């Protein structure tokens, strides 16, 4: 009885954090039942994660942009444009892929710094500055693809970023060995970090959940990681896209939760004036966040171009809105100062699951847009209502 009580207060107190996990769980379960298990099949899950990748990296960057109370509408066409540049550098100039990728990321940083200059230095509203960027890069994309039209990329290394899988080393019972190892490693790291946090908290006599709840949480999360790994290992294992997204999430999660820079970002977001009076360089933080956003847009462009194995004239269209939607579903608040990188990823997966599941069910595209819009509105309404209750 005590156990149930604790669990229910825990969920009530953290409903905002847990809400999207529960939503994702419900969505996945529903689709799985409606499609007779097709949704959770190895092949589909693998495909779903890959298709979410290029939006997920954008959502991570967008979360931080929204945390500091700005917005970036230019990311879609920056991704499209830089993807096209990558294709041109690879195919027309024959520059090796190991040089092209860092170059493209640097271009992204340069574009983001320009956004930062407009917003932080000149004080132009981010909405307007990035709207201008959106138009400019849309034009730039058309310009560079004008002569050739779609540019086909014949570079297996590059294309593998969007389509390839990590090598398996060996097959165990027809399962992808390296993926299993990665999954187990993930579980081990998760359990280790949870136990360490708990120990630290106990050391300072902070409240911790009871051992039974703690065990349940460990088992539950481990089971989910294990299950996803097992499902994926039954097909081709982890894709390179997934590994890249995981790396981005881990790096950004670390930066936002463990570093001075991360603290400064949330400080600027929750009260820019107080941040300034605390000696935090608000302009510098704005520069860094905007530059990081466009760098991730460059990465998104690489992933998308690699996935299509070509640069097209319409690449990047509406990516920015998908990314913003994912960030909001993931719990970011437009009032600033609130929003997690991990939430952004969940948000991206929720939105990708909706598209994927509805495609499997053969739902018409018109309904798909309406349903996704409804989910976005619902997520924000939920956020606003739970916030009010918090007060």
């Amino acid at each position, binding site marked *: 009885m005590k156990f149930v009580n604790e669990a229910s207060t825990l969920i009530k107190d953290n409903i905002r954090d847990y809400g999207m996990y529960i939503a994702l769980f419900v969505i996945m379960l529903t689709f799985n039942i409606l499609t007779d298990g097709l949704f959770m099949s190895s092949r589909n899950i693998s495909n779903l994660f890959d298709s979410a990748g290029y939006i997920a990296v954008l959502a991570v960057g967008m979360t931080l942009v929204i945390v500091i109370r700005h917005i970036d509408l230019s990311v879609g066409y920056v991704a499209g444009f830089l993807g096209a540049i990558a294709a041109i550098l690879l195919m027309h100039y024959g520059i090796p892929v190991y040089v092209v990728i860092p170059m493209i990321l640097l271009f992204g940083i340069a574009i983001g710094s320009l956004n930062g200059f407009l917003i932080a230095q000149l004080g132009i509203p981010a909405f307007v500055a990035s709207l201008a960027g959106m138009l400019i890069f849309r034009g730039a994309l058309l310009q560079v693809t004008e002569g050739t039209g779609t540019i086909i990329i014949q570079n297996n290394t590059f294309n593998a970023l969007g389509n390839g899988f990590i090598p398996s080393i060996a097959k165990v019972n027809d399962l992808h060995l390296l993926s299993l190892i990665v999954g187990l490693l993930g579980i081990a790291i998760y359990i280790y970090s949870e136990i360490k946090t708990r120990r630290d908290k106990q050391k300072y006599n*902070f409240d911790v959940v009871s051992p039974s709840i703690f065990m349940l949480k460990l088992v539950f999360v481990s089971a989910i990681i294990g299950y996803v790994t097992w499902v994926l290992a039954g097909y081709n294992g982890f894709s390179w896209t997934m590994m890249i997204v995981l790396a981005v999430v881990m790096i950004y999660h670390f930066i936002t939760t463990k570093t*001075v820079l991360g*603290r400064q970002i949330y400080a600027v977001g929750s009260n820019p004036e107080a*941040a*300034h009076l*605390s000696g935090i360089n608000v302009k510098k933080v704005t520069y860094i966040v905007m530059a990081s956003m466009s760098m991730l847009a460059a990465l998104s462009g690489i992933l998308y171009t690699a996935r299509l194995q070509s640069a097209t004239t319409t690449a990047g269209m509406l990516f920015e809105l998908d990314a913003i939607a994912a960030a909001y579903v993931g719990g970011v608040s437009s009032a600033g100062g609130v929003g997690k990188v991990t939430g952004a990823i969940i948000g991206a997966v929720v939105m990708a699951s909706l598209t994927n599941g509805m495609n499997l069910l053969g739902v018409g595209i018109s309904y798909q847009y309406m349903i996704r819009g409804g989910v976005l509105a619902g997520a924000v309404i939920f956020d606003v209502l739970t916030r009010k209750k918090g007060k």
Partner: protein
Amino acid sequence: MAEYILEMHDITKQFPGVKALSDVNFKVEKGEIHCLIGENGAGKSTLMKVLSGVYPYGEYEGDIVYEGKVQQFNKISDSVDAGIAIIYQELALFPDLSVYENIYIGNEVKNGGVINWNQTIVKAKKMLNKVNLKVNPEVLIKDLGVGKQQLVEIAKALSKNVKLLILDEPTAALNEDDSENLLQLIKELKKQGITCIMISHKLKEVVAIADKATVLRDGQTICTLDAKKGEMEERTIIKHMVGREINDIYPKRPEKNIGDKVLELRHWSAYDPQLGRSVVKKADLHLRKGEIIGIAGLMGSGRTELALSIFGNPKNYKLYGELILEGDQKKFNHTGEAIKAGVAYVTEDRKGNGLFLIQNITNNVSAAKLTGIAKNGVINDNEEIRVAEHYKNSLHIKASSIEQLVGKLSGGNQQKVSLGKWLFVGPKVLILDEPTRGIDVGAKFEIYTVMNTLIEQGLSIIMISSELGEVLGMSDRVYVMADGKIKGELSADEADQEKIMELATQ
């Protein structure tokens, strides 16, 4: 028997936990200039808000009799319709609209629902003549100086057939010529039969212009002075303003151990380009090691601006003069530089720009010195917790744990978190802006005790405060500011309430 245009009987207004007004009586005769005087927080603004319907009928006790009838104003427009207009210190004009649009906004000149702009301009010109303002009515408000903007506000009030004009510190932001102009205008309006209530801190003006003056103190009417009876004298007014006994208790000061000059300002001026005027004017001031100096002054006297100009200049004032910190002349381009050099500033508005309310105590305490808990840019969580625990215990912050959100703490505990945040910076000069505003007596005492401990440790404190008792009880020396200038310096022995108030109302 004089004819009263306004009689406020036994007005009482409660806020949660505070009685802002208790049984206030205030009577204004038709056609007189009546000044309302009192310290910060005496209840002047609250009384005027009751009168104008900001606090609607039913939210206060007592009666408002206006033009012989008991009034029940439910909203501001009710009082406006009755001919009462308030002009606040922060003008309610639209800077990007023209003069004539501003005068007739909300009161448009219409023919069948369509605005007649030509008619509006003609009428606006008439109103501008009435206030002796010679500007083209098509000029934008933002292109006018503050003095002229003030006149536009009055013209706007006149356009609504105002009978009772209320001016809240009308000359606070004006230079001497503009002030003189305005006072002249008020006298002329009086001749036209308009009654005027003026809230003012400048007693010279009061004496020069007022027929009567009512003094409020701690939410109560103290007295009404009549110029005709020869009662209108600066000294008398001051005595009534401060008359309260200092019954707050201040902790005993430790053995004084005052050392060399830590901070010195020479001819220090700050010009605010946004306001278009100087907010600090040629201030000379010094602070010694182990000393608390008090900076007294009324609202708008430039105290906070002085503090900000020292603390890295976050408002981007144009600064003139010298700032000398521990013998070296300094120029801070950013608050971060001031913090590194050992200056800390605890803001007067802890919720607005002091704390991160949606973050916990831990993150707030470390926010001004993140490098102190980090190595190579990576935060050491354990170190951060240790620091937060240290300040929670040493400052007696009452919270369930250091993980509690600061927004959910009481005012006193929030102020302690603020203090902890700035102590962690390890400052040499600590500027406290209204350190005990809005907190209870117990927490006040604790903060005073902390201040004494700090100066024992060799810190130096600048305390800006509107509470005279606090200034007198805690300071070694007192500087009094008015109108951006330092009007005087008093040692702890010579300072008393009357002397401070005399300097502050110059």
